[in-house]
């Protein structure tokens, strides 16, 4: 099960000056796994902007999660994680443990988790295995999130064949904490006791190592952790209760105790008495205890005089709690079992794995011929693509109202909004676009960041912090590594442009199916923002339809191109247009001029209009009024950024206000409560069946 290369073993040997024993090899493997050490990505991640006036704790500190000041003495903590590999093998437990893991990252900052987002990507539902995966992924997320009482308030669900066998299961969590109560995950002084809660079992053995290679297709179920949300709830409640009395908190994630202790010691040493670890099953070997990734465990660094207080709080709920060792001054991580030292490794060796920058090679791009598609067919195909369907089937399985803070609920707008204890409103959204990234990961990196920014604007919010998750195939393949580097550059560039710090992130490589076919590159951005003026809960009503922003004939990577063949140019991201158009939207919301606004994205103008049509309204569009290109298909289906559609009763005022900021807006049509039609110029299409499909597709595909 060990994943270290010969070269890496050799590095370890040289730096140790001796051969590591088998237990030590397992510890090094856990620490140096791609999953824990970011060895193929770290040097590029350093290029992200992670500073800013609001940043309280950023990536630089290598904490479990970053924190951002939101005023009134409060900070939010934001983090994104995935459980792709485990979800491919055991979707219910894989997805559930993903939720548990991210929640513990948040509470390890002493913050109360207040909202979850989940971003799911699977293969098409014609395949019964994909159906099975999706059903169990959603059920697993619900099982954990509902039981622990943190609302899932939004997310994404989309489909692409490259995710067959290898679904992407991302989950993001936001927490809130008083700024002066934030806990570090690392210690600065020797002598602190290491207190471990929870039972250690044989599930999740070598999980980090497992996630650092491609799926083998063999039975890997032992590497999946089993979720226990009830235990998770106790851990959460009690951790927040005792946070004031501990010096540092760390979640036991990838690499188990080996990684948690080493990272918490942060260059200092530690002595861990492995036989003190409370076990779920008898007769576990000490090596397995050290690397087990059993969930619902936390590690605390505690002053000796507070140990009783901490453990008594857990014991109220009959939850195990034990002192397993202490932080030492000697910079050596020691695991001791029955009085014998079974592993003794310098912190420095464990914390500095070999870093790689693999060769890159750009994929040559072909400009294919524009497909010859009839208008009606294009409209109906785009409107009935599974990505467009209502996600109610999924989010109705989540307890999205728990916490009585969900202001804009799943499916209501491009972002979710939750209320904070200080009365402020926080908007959150996650965005990815694998089809675009497969064409140009650099433009795509910028595009998803800009999209998240626009998505926040439609509810009246400006972004304040972001986290990212970079998901790719094998980094040693030059074209894949090239995508990775491009995506990092794109995201970093956009983050700098918007002055939004990236306060945390994750990289997940080796997302390939058992035949070695990689997923489409899927970087993902999760952004949080604050509603500074008025909140808008977009509501479809009769009125004039206004398009804000230019439409360009850049069709590559669009849903249209996915359906009818790749062609044309990749959309170039003009961040200035995204920013200015978002400012216009915020202005219109604060002036109360619009009742509905939505970012133009998937499926272009037509795809975006589904949000209007699905409410039982008719929409009329005059293509001549769509500015920026003469190509009819591009007018209707282009997915270039910087655009919104809005419904208003004073269209002239919208156009005028846009103009004042240097943004082009045009009245392109109207929305009426007469029948269920989409009118494009002189063509009037009845879309009742498409709306029916929108409402029922997932329910019909996924009900027993």
């Amino acid at each position: 099960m060990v994943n270290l290369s010969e070269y890496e073993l050799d590095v370890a040997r040289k730096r140790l000056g001796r051969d590591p024993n088998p237990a030590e090899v397992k510890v090094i493997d856990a620490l140096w796994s791609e999953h824990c050490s970011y060895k193929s990505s770290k040097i590029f991640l350093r290029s992200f902007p992670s500073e800013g006036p609001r940043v309280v704790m950023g990536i630089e500190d290598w904490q479990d999660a970053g924190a951002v000041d939101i005023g009134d003495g409060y900070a939010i903590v934001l983090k994104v994680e995935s459980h792709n590999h485990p979800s491919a093998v055991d979707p219910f437990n894989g997805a559930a443990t993903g939720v548990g893991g991210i929640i513990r990252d948040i509470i390890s900052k002493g913050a109360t988790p207040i909202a979850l987002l989940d971003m799911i990507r699977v293969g098409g539902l014609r395949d019964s295995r994909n159906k099975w995966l999706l059903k169990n992924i959603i059920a697993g997320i619900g099982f954990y999130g509902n039981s622990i009482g943190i609302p899932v308030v939004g997310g994404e669900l989309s489909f692409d064949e490259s995710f067959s066998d290898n679904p992407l299961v991302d989950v993001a969590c936001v927490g809130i904490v008083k700024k002066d109560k934030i806990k570090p995950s690392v210690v600065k002084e020797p002598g602190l006791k290491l207190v471990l809660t929870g039972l250690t079992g044989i599930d999740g053995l070598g999980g980090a190592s497992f996630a650092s290679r491609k799926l083998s297709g063999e039975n890997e179920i032992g590497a999946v952790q089993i979720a226990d949300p009830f235990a998770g709830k106790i851990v959460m409640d009690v951790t927040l209760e005792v946070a004031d009395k501990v010096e540092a908190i760390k979640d036991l994630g990838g690499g188990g105790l080996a990684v948690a202790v080493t990272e918490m010691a942060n260059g200092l040493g530690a002595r861990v008495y492995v036989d003190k670890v409370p076990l779920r099953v008898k007769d576990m070997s000490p090596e397995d205890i050290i690397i087990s990734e059993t969930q619902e465990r936390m590690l605390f660094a505690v002053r000796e005089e507070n140990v009783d207080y901490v453990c008594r709080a857990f014991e109220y709920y009959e939850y195990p709690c034990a002192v397993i060792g202490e932080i030492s001054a000697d910079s050596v991580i020691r695991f001791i079992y029955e009085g014998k030292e079974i592993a003794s490794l310098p912190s420095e060796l464990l914390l500095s794995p070999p870093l790689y920058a693999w060769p890159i090679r750009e994929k040559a791009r072909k400009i294919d011929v524009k497909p010859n598609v009839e208008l009606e067919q294009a409209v109906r195909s785009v409107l009935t693509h599974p990505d467009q369907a209502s996600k109610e089937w999924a989010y109705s399985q989540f307890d999205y109202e728990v916490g009585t803070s969900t202001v804009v609920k799943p499916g209501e707008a491009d972002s979710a909004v939750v209320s904070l204890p200080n009365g402020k409103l926080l908007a959150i959204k996650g965005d990815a676009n694998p089809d675009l990234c497969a064409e140009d990961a650099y433009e795509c990196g910028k595009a998803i960041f800009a999209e998240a920014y626009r998505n926040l604007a439609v509810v009246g919010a400006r972004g304040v912090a972001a986290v990212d998750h970079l998901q790719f195939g094998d980094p040693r393949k030059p074209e894949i590594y090239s995508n990775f580097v491009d995506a990092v550059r794109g995201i970093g560039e956009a983050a700098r442009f918007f002055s939004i710090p990236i306060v945390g992130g994750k990289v997940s490589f080796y997302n390939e199916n058992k035949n070695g076919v990689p997923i489409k590159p899927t970087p993902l951005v999760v952004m949080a923002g604050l509603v500074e003026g008025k909140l808008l809960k977009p509501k479809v009503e009769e009125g004039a339809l206004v398009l804000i922003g230019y439409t360009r004939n850049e069709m590559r990577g669009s849903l249209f191109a996915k359906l009818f063949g790749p062609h044309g140019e990749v959309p170039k991201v003009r961040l200035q247009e995204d920013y200015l158009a978002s400012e216009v939207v915020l202005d219109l919301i604060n002036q109360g001029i619009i009742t509905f606004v939505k970012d133009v994205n998937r499926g272009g103008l037509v795809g975006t209009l589904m949000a209007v049509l699905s409410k039982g309204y008719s929409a009329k569009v005059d293509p001549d009024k769509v500015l920026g290109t003469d190509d009819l298909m591009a007018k209707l289906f282009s997915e270039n950024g910087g655009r919104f559609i809005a419904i208003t009763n004073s269209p002239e005022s919208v156009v005028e206000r846009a103009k004042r900021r240097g943004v082009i807006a045009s009245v392109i049509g109207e929305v009426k409560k007469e029948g269920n039609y989409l009118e494009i110029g002189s063509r009037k299409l009845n879309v009742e069946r498409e709306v029916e499909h929108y409402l029922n597709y997932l329910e019909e595909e996924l009900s027993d």
Partner: protein
Amino acid sequence: MKFPGTTCDYDVLKALGEAKVEAEIVRYKDLDPDRYSSVVIPGGFSFGDYLRAGSIAASTETMKMVKEMADQGKTVLGICNGFQILTESGLLKGGLLPNLKMRFISKWIYVKVVRDDTRLTKNLPKKVLRMPIAHAEGRFVLDGEEARRLMVFQYSNEKGEVSEDYNPNGSVLNIAGIANEEGNVIGLMPHPERASFPLTSVDGNVDGLLLLRGLRW
């Protein structure tokens, strides 16, 4: 009342504050029944809802004390998992089975008040309330005649019309909540505390407060 696994304790406390009911959260081992005039058992997954929803909590010492409070005529309200605990412990008749669709359902629904002789509904005859449900085991079952007599809330449409179309989980007679004969022990699946704040409530309604105000002493 907070059992291990209770998730809605703070929400209920917040809503009771909004309803001007003096209240505090009590952990399950710490209950002193003499101190309180009423007890609310909020939603969640008590003891992980292992075995069957509410069954482990139902057999705790705490519930014996809650039963004493009920016998003294104090008000006992069970919301969602609290309702499950009340039926499992025998404080209320009937039982709650998995939803007909066999999955968790979260959505806003309407319920009609059909019994106005309980502590919570005495001023609300025939009133239609909008609240959210969020449960996996909410299919209420009880023999027809008794169910008809004890039911307090029925799933309905906006106008108060009761039919199978508005039954989210397959409950007998569309029952969303019942009470004991005396009307001081009440259980319901919808969450009144989630319909107590204009900001987070659908369409800004605060129908939940109409019920929670019944706990004022």
